[in-house]
């Protein structure tokens, strides 16, 4: 079934928090509704669950790959061309550390940039129900659900004191 989204706008934080409570009471699942704001509120301001992110996964994997590459390049070349420099061992850590550091950094950076593009879910081609008032300062609560349940969602949003009309859109 096609999904439809509805949006309620609020001027007060408490009203938006009430709207989330109403939606939960009406049986909507986490993930079916979202808060839209023009300002980064502290997590939990509206009683919402903390968003999950896989922040460290991408840089860590990239750093591990880069470090391994750097280690192979430095150790490999020095084993293939064993020149003793300044009486130091062939595999000396200080000169190897420079390439291993850069390898680690490059791997971490490349994976982070890829991760950013992947995790951002941007560009968002279908914005669903949206209002320009969000960037003006209003707080929006949007519900994306099956078409048959939008009336229940609208009721829950209105009960919290929505400002103006409910905005409807397709996802």
């Amino acid at each position, binding site marked *: 079934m096609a999904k439809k989204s509805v949006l309620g706008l609020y001027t007060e934080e408490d009203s938006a928090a009430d709207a989330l409570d109403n939606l939960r009471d009406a049986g909507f699942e986490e993930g079916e509704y979202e808060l839209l704001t*023009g300002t980064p509120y502290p*997590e939990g301001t509206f009683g919402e669950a903390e968003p999950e992110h896989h922040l460290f996964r991408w840089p860590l994997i990239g750093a591990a790959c880069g470090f391994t590459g750097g280690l192979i390049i430095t150790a490999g070349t020095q084993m*293939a061309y064993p020149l003793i420099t300044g009486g130091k061992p062939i595999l000396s850590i200080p000169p190897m550390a420079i390439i291993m550091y850069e390898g680690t950094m490059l791997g971490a950076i490349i994976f*982070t940039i890829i991760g950013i593009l992947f995790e*951002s879910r941007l560009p968002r081609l279908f914005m669903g129900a949206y209002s320009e008032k969000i960037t003006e300062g*209003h707080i929006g609560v949007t519900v994306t659900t099956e078409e048959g349940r939008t009336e229940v969602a609208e009721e829950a949003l209105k009960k919290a004191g929505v400002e103006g009309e409910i905005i409807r859109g397709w996802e």
Partner: protein
Amino acid sequence: MAINSAGVEYEAVPEPYAETENSVDNRKDVSDRLLRIHNVISNRFWQFAALTGLMFVLGIIGFVLRLASGFDDKDVWGYYVAVFAFLMTTTSAAPMVAIAPRIVNAHWRRPISRAAELWTLAGCLNLILYIPLIWLLPSLENGRRSLWFYGHQASKNEFWTGFESVPAYSPHIWATLAIISLVVLGLALVWISCLPDFAVLRDQGSGWRKKWGERLSLGWIGTSGQWNWQYHRMGVISAFYFMMLIFVHFFISVEFLMVHVPGWIDSLYPITHAHNALQAGVATVMLTIFCLRQFGGYKDYIGLDQFWGLGKLLLALSLLWFWFWFSSFNLFWYAKKPSELSLLELLISGPYMWMFIAEFLLVFIIPWFSMIWNPVRRSVWGPPLIAVSVLIGTLLDRIRLYVASWDAASRDFASMLEMEMSEVPDKILAPGITDIFLIVGFIGGSIFIFMMASRLIPVMNIWEQKEFLLYKAEVQYHRAKVLVLGKPR
């Protein structure tokens, strides 16, 4: 106890909270006022843009002339490398002023963080300037000391590396990768930081700005997940930018400076170079925000807090300048090997002595003696004046070091192998017309890029200003009113 939407119990705080100025009207007011300033373009702006644009054209002419002179005479490239190093020291380091205070949640950075970040766009110009240097930098076959493993020994074939021999162009490969990484990180940082403001332009802007806002915001709607993603990603990118900035300065100072002067062995100098960048980066942002306040219409936003905060940083970094310089100088002074005496003669007591004295005054003595006085440090006009002093001193420093080094590098091939300068240049290489075009042109070009970028990207961070409303409250404290500032996380 209360329950959040995930069904998790949490302790609800029953105490009354401080009343902030956060309301829908105030949030709208912040957007409206900043967009109004952003949309106004004064005649003075276009006059200055035309001037810097003209300077940029001169820079391009100088660039072409320098390329036409070929890469055989290394000494004529001294000023070119000095300009490149100066821009890497100033424009590429300026974003650190946004990064460091943001990491420690310092509220005073909010009105100036975007201006600092915008300088990363000038990094693209630095990348263009860098490209000819790949051809200028000799291969490791000239026998100079290097960070890189290099020898003429044939492979023992016990371990296949994919190369017929160890590449003599290792510095070229790794330095290029590092500089490209720094530029990419800078662009990513600006884009992520600007996303919410592009959405403001899309929704509240008009004309060509609205169109570009639509394109660049990529459907940003401000969900909790998007804000969470943006916060954490900015943190990671910022940390990487800082690490890569230090690393790039490590490369520049070693590969394009120290290794070309026989006998210059100083493990402290790369970090001195990076420190110089932090100092000049703060000075660059100081001057930028002064111009934005005086001529850009941001007088209500950029105030004493910002100049005071940056002024303290500049004073600390100026004191550190002496510490770094003296540590290296002491070593050479007491070691007194012939190669080190030659180096001191080249860089300090010889032909560049007056340039060194001027630089010493401008970068250390003047900032130190003026910024220790409260009336100067806690003023709007004092720190920017000191910033000018630091920037001029830094330019002299880069000219002194890079021009002298490339002059020495062009003289005697055998001395590279002997690790000692057989001949110290007895006079400063005077800049030619091409060099003057390059210096004026590329400094002007960087400012031009900044100004043009500021036409599209709001130079004041709108979302951070709105966020500030959440954390600022004026409360009664006994018989006084005090400003209470909260921390976001």
